[in-house]
């Protein structure tokens, strides 16, 4: 099911998160098995922490716990581009 059998990289995870969650910005670190992702996205606004983390896990589906052995997540809601922070 995994897109590839090659080891996951922080760069791959970052791109997939940013592609999978509209407007998301991700910073991902990791060693190929254990990763830490700090993600901010407008989509997180108004969601509980659990729901925010689920959006991130959903990007990877069954790969979490398997190809991506562990994925630690911190999420932040950010204002969408159209909303101006004045």
């Amino acid at each position, binding site marked *: 099911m995994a897109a590839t059998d090659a080891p996951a990289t922080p760069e791959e995870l970052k791109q997939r998160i940013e592609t999978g969650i509209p407007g998301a910005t991700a910073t991902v670190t990791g060693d190929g098995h254990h990763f830490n992702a700090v993600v901010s996205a407008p989509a997180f606004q108004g969601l509980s922490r*659990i729901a925010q*983390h689920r959006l991130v896990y959903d990007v990877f589906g069954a790969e979490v716990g398997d190809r991506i052995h562990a994925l630690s997540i911190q999420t932040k809601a950010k204002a969408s581009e159209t909303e101006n922070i004045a």
Partner: protein
Amino acid sequence: MSDDQTTQIREAIQSAISENPVILFMKGTPDQPMCGFSARTVAILQSVGTPFAAVNILPDPRIRQELSTLSNWPTIPQLFIDGEFVGGCDIVTEMYESGELQTALGVEDANDGEPAPEPAAQEPAPLTIENRL
């Protein structure tokens, strides 16, 4: 045939969650965690000083499978308070640091407004559920 066992496991998980006000599904046991994230979550619960039940998910892969189906959460550990899924290690850590966890566990109001001294080295007394799953 294995369907029956899977149903049994699911029901055992559900009743464990509803019967224990605070229950942690983890890899290993509180005394011998088998994963850093489980260890960290146990340490947080112990420092808060709340008794909690713990279930080791490692003995049978179906425990984790059924648990994750139930909670819609892919990773271990998973903490439930009063029958509600609270989160994994990251969320529990954030909630601990912000004080939300203490509030959810009802340990903050224990002293009438008196700022409770840190229960630093209080002997934790976690219950461990026998895995009969």
